[in-house]
């Protein structure tokens, strides 16, 4: 009669059966990991720009205030990208021949805007409003990270829904006094929670979990 299966098939088959158990879990775990990883949410990945603008230099070094360029951040939903005009206020005086700044000068002359690459953005169906966050004592740094340490700007935080909710559910952990909003490298006090709760009261901050807060 024909020889039956060789002995090693026992081990083999058992391994396979075990694999059937484990593989779905493993695959799911890997998928989740990827989904939460910077590869997807692009955290800390510097993006190339037509002009290698350095926040490190301008903010960290020269100590410019965020609002010097992003003028509308306190009043509108959108923290505007500064017009070329703003760049030229200084760079018509200093570095005015630097080849690095050629695109800026060209744009200023030709009136054709420079096309920057977006770094921080949320999907089109998310309605984020800068003014309300800034006015309620959420620091720029809280969402954008230490911009003053970014030679080339990168996304400082994952900017995904779970991350947003984290703060919307516990604002007291992140809120800071209004006057400190634009400070980089702000050190939260030891009593952040007590201070936070007090500020939440004072600024009338609510825990907004309603979908309509961001999606319309």
């Amino acid at each position, binding site marked *: 009669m024909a020889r039956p299966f060789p002995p090693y098939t026992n081990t083999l088959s058992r391994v396979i059966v075990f694999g059937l158990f484990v593989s779905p879990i493993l695959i799911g775990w890997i998928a989740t990991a990827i989904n939460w990883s910077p590869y997807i949410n692009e955290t800390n990945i510097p993006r190339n720009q037509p002009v290698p603008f350095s926040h490190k230099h301008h903010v960290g070094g020269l100590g410019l205030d965020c609002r010097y360029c992003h003028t509308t951040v306190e009043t*509108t939903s959108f923290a505007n*990208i500064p017009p070329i005009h703003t760049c030229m206020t200084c760079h018509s005086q200093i570095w005015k021949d630097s080849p690095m700044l050629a695109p800026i000068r060209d744009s200023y002359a030709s009136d054709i805007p420079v096309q920057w690459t977006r770094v921080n*953005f949320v999907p089109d169906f998310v*309605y984020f409003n800068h003014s309300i966050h800034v006015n309620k004592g959420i620091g720029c740094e809280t969402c954008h990270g230490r911009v003053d340490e970014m030679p080339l700007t990168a996304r400082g935080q994952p900017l995904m829904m779970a991350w947003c909710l984290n703060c919307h559910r516990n604002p007291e952990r992140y809120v800071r006094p209004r006057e400190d909003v634009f400070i980089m490298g702000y050190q939260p006090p030891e009593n952040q929670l007590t201070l936070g709760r007090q500020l939440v009261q004072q600024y009338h901050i609510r825990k907004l979990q309603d979908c309509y807060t961001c999606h319309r």
Partner: protein
Amino acid sequence: MPPIEREKGKGRREEGEEKRENPGSQFPIPLHEEMDPAMDRRAFLTLLGASLALAGLSGCTLRPPDEKIVPYVHPPDADEMTPGKPLFYATACPRNGYVDGVLVTSREGRPIKIEGNLLHPASLGASDAITQATLLEMYDPDRSQQVMHRGLPGTWDAFLGEANTYMQAQRAVRGAGLRVLTGSVTSPTLVAQIRAMQAQLPAMQWHQHEPISRDNVRAGAQMAFGRYADTLYDFTQSAVIVSLDGDFLLSMPGHVRYARDYAASRRVRTKACGPGQPAREIMSRLYVAESMPTLTGTMADHRLPLRARDIENVARALAQQVGVNGVAPTEPLPPEVAEWVAVAARDLQAFRGAGVIVPGDFQPPAVHALAHAMNAALGNTGKAVRYIAPVEAEPMDQAASFRKLVQDMQAGQVQMLIILSSNPVYTSPADLDFAGAMAKVPMSVHLGLYDDETSALCQWHIPETHYLETWSDGRAYDGTTTIMQPLIAPLYDNTRSAHELLDALLVPPGRAGHDIVKTFWSGQHRGADFEAFWRKSLNDGVAAHPLSLRRRGGTELSSGASVAGQVSLQAANPTSQPGSPSPVPGGGGLELIFRPDPTIWDGRYANNGWLQELPKPLTKLTWDNAVLMSPRTAEKLGLTRQGGTPGTHPESVPVVELRYRGRSVRGPVLILPGHPDGSATVTLGYGRTRAGHVGTGAGFNAYALRTSDALWHDDGLEIVRTDDLFSLGVTHSHQTMEGRDIVRIGSITQFRKDPHNPDGKEHVPNKPPMILPEAPPLPPSEYAWGMSIDNNVCIGCNACVVACQAENNIPVVGKEQVLGGREMHWLRIDRYYTGMDMERPTGTYFMPIPCMQCEKAPCELVCPVDATLHSDDGLNMMVYNRCVGTRYCSNNCPYKVRRFNFLQYADIAPVIQLMRNPEVTVRSRGVMEKCTYCVQRIQNAKIDAEVQDRKVGGDEVQTACQQACPTNAIVFGDINQPDSQVAQLKAEPHDYPLLAELGTRPRTTYLARLVNPNPEMRAE
């Protein structure tokens, strides 16, 4: 207009899936192709910003694609624009010469919404469906963008060259061969320009042709006063209103204001409920004798359907009974008509000086003369009825004028014809062969928004700038003047306004529109500070100027009394009334009635998807016109609706051939309850052959039957049934309420007895006993949004529907989809008939149905993915980006207010993207959507309030529908604040929730409809 930032320059778009679905729409290629390469820089940047949003459409990798972000080169002045903040500009929307004041919302330099202008007397903040829809007209990709010369692309300079040679020739003959054809004109600037032209070329002639002409009104005034005059009504003053085929709620100039005033006279409140809603338990009474069902008729307490030609007779009888001397009915009245007349007459007598008689624009002059006489005899003149000098710059008998023009053209006397923003080839009466006559004109110029039927026959076609891109001016029905300012630089280069064209012809190369208008006004302006006047006029949208002495009224004709004198004098000897009794009845048979279309008017809006898909108020018909007739007439002709034959839609209707005065047209039949027997109504404006992708081929052309001697109705119609069937996209085909508690209808008398049950029926209490234990009460919320809709003053005019469509980026789906029951309107207006017999319904009632925002929402319970759920402040949230499209919520919604994107409906044409409201997500295929109470407005209001550390006011947020409503029937607000208007309205006794027995606890509730019948009238 400033260039814009990319950030807001787009309609919000759904996530990845949709991007994957439209790989074709990669910007910028398609947009560039659409635009003239040499387009103006600012306009280009305007588009650039928008279109860059589309860059995201590429690629579908795991990671989102790189997005570009484009800053200004030079920042805009802070007062001009802050990115992310909407701006509002006042201007005016012209139609048939008259303008309605509007306030246009602009985002980053792009107009995205048209609303009424609070300061403008013809609007008072409200607007109508058509006016709001003109926004889409501006962004219409089919708009003419290219100077055309004999059907081939030409250039403006070439045109100017050729035109000049002709103008020179004309100067030689003092303009004997020059003709200018316009519609009705109220624009002072335009008039001045034409006058200037006439001054240079005395022999030239100015003809007017307005397809929806008001010749009857003018002739009527002539008859009564011996001169032209416009009539103004003030329904707030009136206790008894009698309309003789006068549809003052939808089609008359000033109808928006009239609706507002009429509603004021009908609104019933037990307590004062905020501004404009005083406590009053009396109603005006409305009698309507009409030749086809209109919105005015549906509001009537006593409605009398009559063939159009019988109206005059009723007018005579009524005049006789209210004491106008020397008038008598030309033929005896049938009993029920006689009774109607008698009762109405008694009522009018009882309320002398507090009544109004409104003649219909489409009724013969004699009816108007009689109305004037009656108003005078009853002492209404000077109170509810006032007369002003004509608002039109040059009133004339347009029919005659147009006939003259055609004759001249055929006689070869016309060397140069300038057609300003009208489409005579399509709209000309069938008996005048305008198209044929065009062949005899060596130089014809057509200025128009579209490359249409007329431009096809003209030597030159000049693309016209839309009024939102134009400096101009115009006057409202009451004479109020508005200086119109552009919201955006013309989207397309080469476009010219009428002003610019005429100016260029007079003094080549011509000036810019801004200079023309401003120069004119600086000429008009007496007194020092012109700039102040100019700025204020632009800001208010109402010119503070002699042309309109008072905000309301215009130059008074003369004291009411003396007018009354003239009138009675005239009316005393009817023989002196030319052409009466009119019109000459034709050769028997059925009566054919022509009416403007309630949505696309005379056909000029045929390419407007919003209006094409807007259900016509009564028939709920979309995308087509039809032969409207009463059930009995249809039965007589054997045209009752029949089931489908293979290959046709199962609900198809028979197609008939209309034979009238030797011409014939084929069209589908639609049975309209309440239509008088023995007549058939057709609406104008359909059957366009060169309207554009949307309008071409929709419906049949009723102009082909219309003759210049009987523009509105005449006998002699023969209806022949054909074997063909046709499918009509009717969105609401069921006539009755099936005895369900939907619209509550009561009488004012019953209301005074028991305000809680005005209809005298038993009702399920608002909160029925629940078998299950009550859910724990929701945590106390800061706000509780709610809405109250007053069925009593809703006239079903559709203004709210279009407002909603514009505000919420609601797509147009097309006729096929409507046939499939997939129209997308978040807000629909239901129309129900009451009475056993659809032949003679006892009433017609409207009910706007937005989402009820139920506190116990059945839809939420069944959504498997939490895509629809409840917010703290009581909104029934719909999260598009979470929706997987099971459509269970729609099944479980008893009000059927949910709409589903069965296919990719959202239009991805780049130019349409510019129009989108950036505050609202554009929904992709496969997701559910519905009314959100304009949550974007709520959220922004909240944010603004929070930034200022204050609370949102109870009436601070206005929904789009509320804002547009001419009658203030819709009120939205925070019911947590007892002093808010909505809270007060919900406290009214006759407030009720729809389908209360289901226990859904709607946040939208209704106020019962009340009628005020005359007890003297025998019940039918």
